[in-house]
């Protein structure tokens, strides 16, 4: 009995010693208490190498959990990640309200210009309403081109376009096989869609699809290559309704740039898309639109004017002018009170432009930071007409061919 007791005591001591050793802390957990919520989180224990996503989303303010979810105290990867929102992409539009929303963030009031989520959800980039209507009309599923369906059901009570709601497009309820094919193959790259399978497409929906310009970098300086990820990825074969990936590898920018046509003017391939296309065009203006044409309104004359009219301008006298906010978020120019900038026909500031004292203009690329000088057409030999402002008319004289 004495021997048994001694052995058992030895066994207990051994297991105690082992457990003591096993329970010793391996490295100090890294605590972060973001000021926004004031709750400690330990994500940085493992993820200390992830760069801050943007200056506007400072790590010290937001931390990780307010956007990504997850168990903030857990030090075990499985438990810590178990309640994460959306895995690689918390900004997926199905989750965006929890991840990015809230009155002080991106689902606030229109008056505060904090209705980003509402704008995106109703934008044609999310709804794809025009293409769906056009497809259904082409194959006899609807009598006209009126927008009835979006990728997901969406409504807009305060619409100014007359479209109050779109129903969810359900391809399996369609009778024409090509409309069904269209539904299955062509709806994966719009912001409110379920992304295609695979790591490469994991962040191709929601806010991330445009604003995630690096591995973990959010930006409003969106280079054309980001837009190309969807807009120049290939094309649809309309006979089979299948997607044909682009096979070539562009060497020159002129070959790489997205153009539905083969002719373009220099500004169309040297600038980035967002240098001309405004936030309302790209991200929506909060109203439901029938198709791309009804929201896209930037034309050559927006910057160059017509033979009889100069482009619209605004001298910045209000420190709360939207131009200052946008320039603050992407500081490629130093805007100052008293500066005169170009504005669009609906008064959106082209905040990266400036009217120079000699009456010419300059634009700083939002992503490239390159400075471009340009001038109005008034007083030049240009033969453009005010009602012929689509790019094809400029191409008659200024075209470069691909």
């Amino acid at each position, binding site marked *: *009995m004495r021997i*048994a*007791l001694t052995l058992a005591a030895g066994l*207990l001591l051994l*297991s105690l010693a082992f457990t003591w050793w096993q329970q010793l*802390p391996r490295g100090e957990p890294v605590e972060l208490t973001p000021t926004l919520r004031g709750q400690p989180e330990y994500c940085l224990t493992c993820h200390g190498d992830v760069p801050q996503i943007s200056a506007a989303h400072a790590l010290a303010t937001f931390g990780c959990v307010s956007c990504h979810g997850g168990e*903030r*105290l857990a030090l075990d990867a499985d438990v810590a990640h178990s309640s994460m929102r959306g895995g690689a992409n918390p900004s997926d539009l199905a989750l965006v309200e929890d991840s990015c929303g809230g009155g002080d963030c991106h689902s606030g009031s229109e008056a505060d210009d904090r209705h980003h989520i509402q704008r995106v959800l109703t934008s044609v980039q999310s709804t794809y309403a025009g293409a769906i209507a056009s497809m259904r009309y082409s194959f006899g599923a609807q009598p006209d081109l009126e927008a009835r369906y979006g990728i997901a059901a969406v409504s807009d009570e305060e619409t100014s376009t007359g479209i109050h709601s779109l129903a969810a497009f359900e391809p399996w309820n369609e009778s024409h096989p090509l409309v069904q094919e269209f539904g299955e193959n062509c709806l994966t790259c719009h912001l409110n869609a379920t992304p295609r399978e695979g790591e490469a497409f994991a962040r191709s929906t929601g806010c991330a699809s445009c604003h995630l310009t690096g591995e973990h970098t959010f930006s409003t300086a969106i280079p054309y290559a980001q837009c190309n990820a969807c807009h120049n990825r290939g094309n649809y074969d309309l006979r089979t309704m299948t997607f044909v990936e682009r096979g070539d590898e562009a060497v020159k920018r002129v070959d790489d740039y997205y153009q539905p046509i083969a002719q373009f003017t220099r500004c169309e391939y040297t600038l980035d898309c967002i240098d001309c296309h405004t936030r309302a065009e790209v991200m929506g203006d909060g109203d439901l639109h029938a198709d791309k044409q009804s929201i896209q309104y930037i034309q050559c004359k927006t910057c160059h004017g017509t033979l009889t009219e100069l482009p619209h301008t605004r001298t910045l006298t209000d420190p709360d002018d939207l131009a200052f906010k946008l320039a603050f978020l992407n500081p490629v120019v130093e805007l100052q009170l008293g500066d005169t900038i170009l504005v669009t026909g609906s008064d959106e500031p082209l905040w990266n432009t400036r009217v120079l004292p000699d009456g010419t203009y300059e634009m700083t690329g939002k992503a490239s930071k390159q400075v471009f000088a340009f001038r109005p057409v008034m007083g030049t030999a240009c033969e453009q007409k005010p009602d012929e402002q689509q790019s094809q008319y400029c191409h008659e004289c200024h075209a470069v061919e691909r």
Partner: protein
Amino acid sequence: MRPGFFEHLHPPTIAAAQARWSHTLGAGGSAIFLMLVLALTGMLEMFYYVPNPEQAALSVQRIAYHVPFGALTRNLHYWAAQLLLVVAVVHLLRVVFTAAYSGKRRFNYLLGLGLFVLVILLDFTGYILRWDADVCWPLVTGTNLLKAIPWIGDSLYRIAGGGGEACSTALVRFYTWHIFGLSIFVIILGVWHAFRVRRDGGIAAPPPALRESKKRISRRELLRREALAVLMLSALLILLAAFLPAPLAPAMTDPPTIGEEARAPWFFLWVQQMLRWGDPFILGVLIPLALLAVLALIPYVFPKPADGDIGRWLPRSGRAAQVVVTLIFLGVLTLTLLTLTSA
């Protein structure tokens, strides 16, 4: 030599045949030790546990990941609780299979059965205190069973769960039941049970005249055997706690999301299986209560085992009780396995 404190808790000598491991299986003593471990580790957990719906799961994570030796303490509490259920079942089977429930021990058998029920309830309430995403479904199901009882169901539901939506209001109730309401009865019944073991003449054995051997062991020897059991059980507990951490899931959300694998804790899987078949009151309340009643009635309605058979393994005179208990045990085991395989 005058006996020391621990020696004093034991009779001066006990029959050698009934003091063997192969007779007692060490189950009753192990149960007492595990309860002490549970009290100690539970008290340590109370220093950090916050019984508040918003903070409970987070405080469990704090214990599991940040408090020095918190994970070990929590794992020990978890494994002691699981083992306590196992040894309680073993103890019950041993008592029935050695006809140790009869005669003057009838009442202590009931006390033991009461302790068994309390231990199950303590295990369930403790499981709920994790307050994470995995416990919401069992909590709702468990408390809804109370509601299914005619007449008094709603009152019972309010008493157990605080009356609101279980996954919002039940935490403080379950905490109080776990820490105090149930534990105080375990202490009372446990002390009473141990006292009655002494008062009823120690481990059940045939009357002296019918014993095959007159050999007895001293309380010092008994104490050594207990010490040996405690050392080995401690080593087992510590190794289990070191290698197999107690389960943890993401914090419960409001409103709660119920995972795809909604599953009762292992000791209630057999009830979960029955609930799939129909009426919750009959299958989830009446049948378990009926089984408990059958167990409670064993010493009172089954033929009394012969005096010479008391304290002997599987005596013929206790056959009916042995068969009934075996059937109940196998039934519960089968239902448990069915749930595990059908998920």
